[in-house]
């Protein structure tokens, strides 16, 4: 195993060497960093040129200069790691240090949301192949595939952000909106669950009616201006999660799993006020992490208490439920921060920002304000990036599941009388995940490329911004720094994908290759 990884890493290093050599020379011969200064009439220009030539070694031809750059990276073994300096003399690594977390923050949320939604929709549309839902989703996926992200981003800024902010000013939903939302939700649920004509009509009516009532209630109680969940609402939602998770994870026949999942919202209800107190008195990342750790411990012990045999699925069910309940706690706390947050001078009732990554005018030192600020700044870029990458996952998971469903072992599973839920979730879905994992891992690296445009549109100061400056200023070291990070990530992601593949699929042996 280690020999295999070692060999792979060696090949990867060669590939990285080759591609960086290619890019370095291409970038070096295609532009002259001194161009602006050469034409300048400034008397200091000559001295500046001389200084730049000295610091950036511009008198060395590019292929040789590449090896000087490489020597800096080779310093990783001797402790003198350097990526060179930018034109203004600062080390590239300081820029990268501040840019990398920003970009990661930008793409993580979008990737997670896109993966979860994409796989869910893809699987449902595979199960309902050639239904109206399937056709609609295929069209939507293709449409999203064809959207230029900068175009979507401008639209989101103009419509979603500004109109949503206007809407939040009074928090009332107009009847026209309620009716159209009700009709849309009716169509959605009817297409999703599907069945014969009568059943579809009943589902449509129920979904449309409950959406209308729900939205009217929210509008009447001014929930949007004063959002919050409260203990009761959280309990109801938690119970909903418990049923949904149990249904997909083990099925209702597993009484132990159902009971242990249902225990999670009850325990949550008991701890509602203590958690609330701790969150207010000791804001910070530690209590949040502690809370999640505790919920998982509680979930595991509850599962062990309820289940005497076959404990694995029960533990899984209750842990997933408990994490969801934990997220509810966090959302509830953020919603409580909402009213004071939008009342601050910095926000002034326009909570969804269209540009930049944080609001510098916010009063510093309030953890929950900063947290909420990060979240609101993430909304638009996340929506934009999700829209784009969602389509790929839908198409891919649908295709893979359809392929898996035609396999012989699925027929065997059905033939021995397993329930359809078990066949889909245990036999088909798990095998769908194997190829999906690999594209997810590889995709995460390539999405950084997509983030370059997103950052540009939304004015974030991440890798994309660095890359832009690098190209516009002919800053070769900065460009190579950005490339170094993205390509290393891409290469590592490929390695991780291969290893994961062999770990998930026992038919593939990486070690067996002689």
């Amino acid at each position, binding site marked *: 195993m280690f020999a295999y990884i070692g060999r792979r890493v060696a090949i990867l290093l060669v590939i990285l060497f080759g591609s960086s050599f290619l890019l370095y020379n291409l970038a070096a011969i295609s532009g002259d960093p001194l161009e602006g200064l050469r034409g300048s009439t400034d008397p200091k220009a000559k001295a500046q040129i001389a200084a730049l030539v000295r610091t950036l070694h511009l008198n060395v031809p590019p292929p040789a200069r590449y090896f000087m750059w490489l020597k800096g990276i080779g310093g990783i073994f001797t402790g003198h790691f350097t990526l060179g300096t930018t034109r203004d003399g600062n080390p590239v690594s300081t820029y990268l240090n501040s840019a990398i977390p920003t970009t990661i923050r930008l793409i993580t949320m979008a990737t997670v949301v896109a993966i979860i939604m994409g796989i869910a929709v893809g699987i449902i549309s595979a199960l309902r192949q050639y239904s109206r839902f399937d056709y609609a989703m295929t069209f939507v996926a293709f449409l999203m595939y064809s959207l230029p*992200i900068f175009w979507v981003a401008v639209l989101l800024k103009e419509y979603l952000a500004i109109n949503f902010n206007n809407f939040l000013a009074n928090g009332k939903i107009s009847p026209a909106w309620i009716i159209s939302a009700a009709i849309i939700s009716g169509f959605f649920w009817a297409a999703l669950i599907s069945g014969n004509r009568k059943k579809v009509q009943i589902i449509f009516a129920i979904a449309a009616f409950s959406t209308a009532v729900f939205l009217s209630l929210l509008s009447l109680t001014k929930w949007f201006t004063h959002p919050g969940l409260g203990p009761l609402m959280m309990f109801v939602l938690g119970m909903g999660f418990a049923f949904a998770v149990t249904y997909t994870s083990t099925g209702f026949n597993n009484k132990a799993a159902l009971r242990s999942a249902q225990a999670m919202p009850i325990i949550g209800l008991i701890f509602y006020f203590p958690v609330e107190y701790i969150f207010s008195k000791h804001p910070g990342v530690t209590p949040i992490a502690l809370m999640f750790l505790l919920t998982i411990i509680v979930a595991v012990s509850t599962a062990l208490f309820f289940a005497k045999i076959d404990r694995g699925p029960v533990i899984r069910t209750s842990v997933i439920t408990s994490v969801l309940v934990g997220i509810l706690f966090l959302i509830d706390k953020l919603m409580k921060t909402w009213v004071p947050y939008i009342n601050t001078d910095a926000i002034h009732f326009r909570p969804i920002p269209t540009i930049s990554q944080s609001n510098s005018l916010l009063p510093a030192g309030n953890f929950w304000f900063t947290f909420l600020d990060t979240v609101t700044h993430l909304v638009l870029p996340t929506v934009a990036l999700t829209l784009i990458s969602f389509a790929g996952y839908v198409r891919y998971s649908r295709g893979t599941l359809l392929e898996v469903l035609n396999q012989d072992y699925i027929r065997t599973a059905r033939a021995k009388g397993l329930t359809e839920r078990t066949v889909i979730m245990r036999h088909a879905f798990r095998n769908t995940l194997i190829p999906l994992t690999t594209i997810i891992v590889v995709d995460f690296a390539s999405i950084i490329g997509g983030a370059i445009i997103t950052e540009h549109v939304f004015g974030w100061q991440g890798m994309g911004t660095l890359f832009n400056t690098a190209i516009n200023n002919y800053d070769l070291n900065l460009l190579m720094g950005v490339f170094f990070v993205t390509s290393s990530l891409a290469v590592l992601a490929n390695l991780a994908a291969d290893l994961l593949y062999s770990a998930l699929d026992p038919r593939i042996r990486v070690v067996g290759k002689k």
Partner: protein
Amino acid sequence: MNFFKRTPKVVPRVADSDIFNKETEGLSQSQIVRGRFIRHRGAMISVFVLLSIIIFVFSALGFKILGLGYGGWWKYNSIDMTPLRSEGCPGGLGGCPTLDLLPGKNFGLGDHPFGQDDIGRDYFALVMRGAQRSLLVMFVIGIVAGLIGTVIGAVSGYFRGWVDAVLMRFNDFIITIPTIIIGSVIGFHFGNKGVLFLAVFLGLFTWSGLARLVRGEFLTLREREFVDAARVAGASNRRIIFKHILPNAVGVIIVSITLIMSGAILLESALSYLGFGVVSPDVSLGLLISQYQDSFTTRPWLFWYPGLFIIVISLCVNFIGDGLRDAFDPRQRRRLSRKERSKNHDLTTVAKAGEIN
């Protein structure tokens, strides 16, 4: 609860496969593929829409190939400034679109169907010019990348050994560099040399995925009996590659080229948007969006039309690719219409038996 229950039609029925077999009896492979493609409604609509767009865009403004010019039927061009038309515009801002698709006295294109930009240029002409550019870039990238990818993939899959190793390592170099990075480096420095140059250069770096696919296809196909037969009969390597293996791999190649092309139009517009692609005074759809995105609140039409053209073109290419993939996939089973099923009524009893819930 039967949420997990699949719609029963998914499993191909006994009767269905009988129908399929009857349909493909005595037809050549290309006839089957063509038939399947023509039945794919989305793809056929897309072919029609894309062809109309191409004809419309290129006839409206005219173009020049090798000195042979064609004037175009549209009265304005993308350079001349005309006085801003302000009658009937909301908010008193000049240059609003005159396109009116509702029946009435203003029905028709009008003087400036897509409006005018802030200095009075006819926006219809600008968008047509941009669409010409974007279509050109799309096709050139498709052709260049398709050629290189096919040749490299074919050679390395067919000859294997050190040729394969060298070519695939080279391929890895290209794959590691994100397309947007290499595209920006090229675009920023060579964008001013003209759009054709840019497209060819971008094509030089977008073939890697295709080459991998073609190589995989060749690796399996070269082991097949018909290749051995050809070799025994004394066929040269070139003949085996082009006459025997390539026709069998053409499905993968065509589908993959359509994907490259739909990616190419988005890549070009993204690069132009960042300022690293087509540069002013030349026009492309991405550049138009980038130039006028700030005037969205005052002159929204400057933003809508180029975006709509990008989306429609890219959507069409994607759908055509989907139709081609379905058509080339031998395992593909289409869903039978009710009429076809009822025609085979005598077989439905068997079909019931094949149905699995």
